């Protein structure tokens, strides 16, 4: 999973570069060559949508997702692990629900052959990429839940 997360991180680097390049293309084209495009915002937004979730699992792996942790940090280790196990399972369930929600949206996009207004790009591949990011996030929540479950259920003598 770590390798996949690292790969997704690198893909996200490329997507960010892509967003900057697309917007600069428009700015330079419009300002210096009087050649504005009608598609740059759509393309940048599609790339942004993919970058939004592809590295989400990596960010969870690094525990960089923001949370209110002042109570949990004060709990004894055993309680903390138990709580983190429960919240990770809940995170897994919520992420999977969102995956199902997006899958229905993908199905609808495929059925209707939905494309962007100006760039005439099919939307579904980008939705699939975003959903893939969420699937990876769900897996990462599963890994996190397992890790904290093992720590939670470990007999006290082993924790020393």
């Amino acid at each position: 999973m770590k390798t996949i997360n690292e790969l997704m991180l690198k893909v996200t680097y490329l997507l960010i570069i892509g967003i900057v390049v697309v917007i600069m293309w428009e700015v330079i084209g419009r300002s210096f060559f009087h050649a504005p495009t009608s598609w740059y915002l759509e393309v940048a937004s599609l790339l942004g949508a993919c970058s939004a979730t592809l590295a989400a699992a990596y960010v969870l792996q690094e525990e960089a997702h923001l949370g209110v942790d002042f109570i949990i940090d004060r709990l004894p280790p055993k309680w903390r692990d138990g709580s983190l196990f429960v919240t990770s399972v809940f995170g897994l369930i919520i992420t999977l629900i969102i995956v199902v929600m997006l899958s229905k949206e993908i199905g609808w996009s495929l059925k209707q052959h939905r494309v962007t207004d100006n760039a005439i790009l099919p939307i579904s591949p980008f939705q699939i990429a975003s959903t893939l990011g969420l699937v990876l996030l769900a897996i990462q929540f599963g890994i996190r839940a397992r890790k904290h479950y093992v720590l939670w259920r470990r007999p006290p003598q082993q924790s020393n």
Partner: protein
Amino acid sequence: MEGMAWQLILVLLLLAVFLLSGMPLAISLGGTGIVGIMILKGPAYVFNLGFVVWETMFSWSLIAIIGFVLMGCIFSEFGFGKDIYDFVYKWLGHLPGGTVISSIVMCALFGFICASAMAGISTVGKLAVPEMERLKVSRKLYSGAFAFGGTLSAIIPPSIWMIIYCGLSEASLGHMFFAGIVPGFLLVILGSIYISLRVMANPKLSPPPPRKYTAKEKFEALLKISPAIITFLVVLGGIYRGFFSAIEASAVGAVMAFLCALVFKGRSFSVFKGAFKSTVKICVMIYVILIGAMLFSHLIFLSGLKEFIVSIFTGLNVPNMVVYLMILAIITILGCLMDVLALLVICVPIFMPIVEAIGIDPILFGIIMIIQCELAEVTPPVGLNLFIIKGVLPPGTTLGSIAVSAFPFVVISWIIFIMMYLWPQIALWLPSFITR
């Protein structure tokens, strides 16, 4: 009506339980939204809300976050922070209380080059604290100034909080950027006057630097930060002159930061990689939280809680000023428990209809809310900025003493809030001047 009150209590309780259990904010918000909608409309309804998630991710305005965060991360990773500190210290250090004033001004300038106030305070603290300790500046004075500085960096454009606020409230991002400048400037001036007066009354609080810097040294310091100044002027000037929109300005700023780093700091692939990694961490965290926030907002919308909350506040039969102060008080209380981002995504959908109902301009409210959210971060027991400031101060400093030192600056900020309520043009004049 009673049923609605119970619904509201249930939703807030559910959110509080999720948040306090240490769950990631995105899951707390999204989970509350999904569970709430399931109870309200049935499980099948939730699975038809894919469009809410997709439209949040596909949002045009959020593209600006990526560009501005990248710009800030490049500037930070390449050490432009130290150059700014040198510049401010050399130019303002000789004023009464100049060493402390420098830290406030530096925090404000950091607002431009840094992605978040937290990172700004941390960097300013690391650079300024050794100098403050060497000069035996009163810790009580400068720790409060750091706390105050964090609020400034949040309203100096381009602020990430402003972009998020605009994404949630549909206010104009370009206007928001310019609206922060005058209140930010006023806060710096009032904060500096307060420090100067205290130091003039008791010079021992902040002894002057051992020597005055020569004009040559000052201009060398100015030259070093010229890349950041030029980028700032290009970004804001470009928006002002209509060369590009605020979204496009983010990419221009990122490219300028990249070029400045290449030209002035030399090539270093590993530093660029570090900047990209920080950008991904910040942006993905924000995007995922916004997905959760949109699901939470959808629950508020579907349940009719929005109208209910507005009716509670408007039915109080108190002057609008009291409602305004009540909202600020609620934000302060919540700020004791959560981060600025959490405060924004939770409070904006709830308070926006009230603000509109009592006739406060959304841009004005945005500026006030962002400052107040940052101020709440220096309120015990859990103000995040307090911990960061404590982390950079010498051992033995307590959270309580920092909070007490910050109190006079909180009062200054509240004076500005009341002034902005009475004379909204303080914030709104510049944006209206730009669009004239």
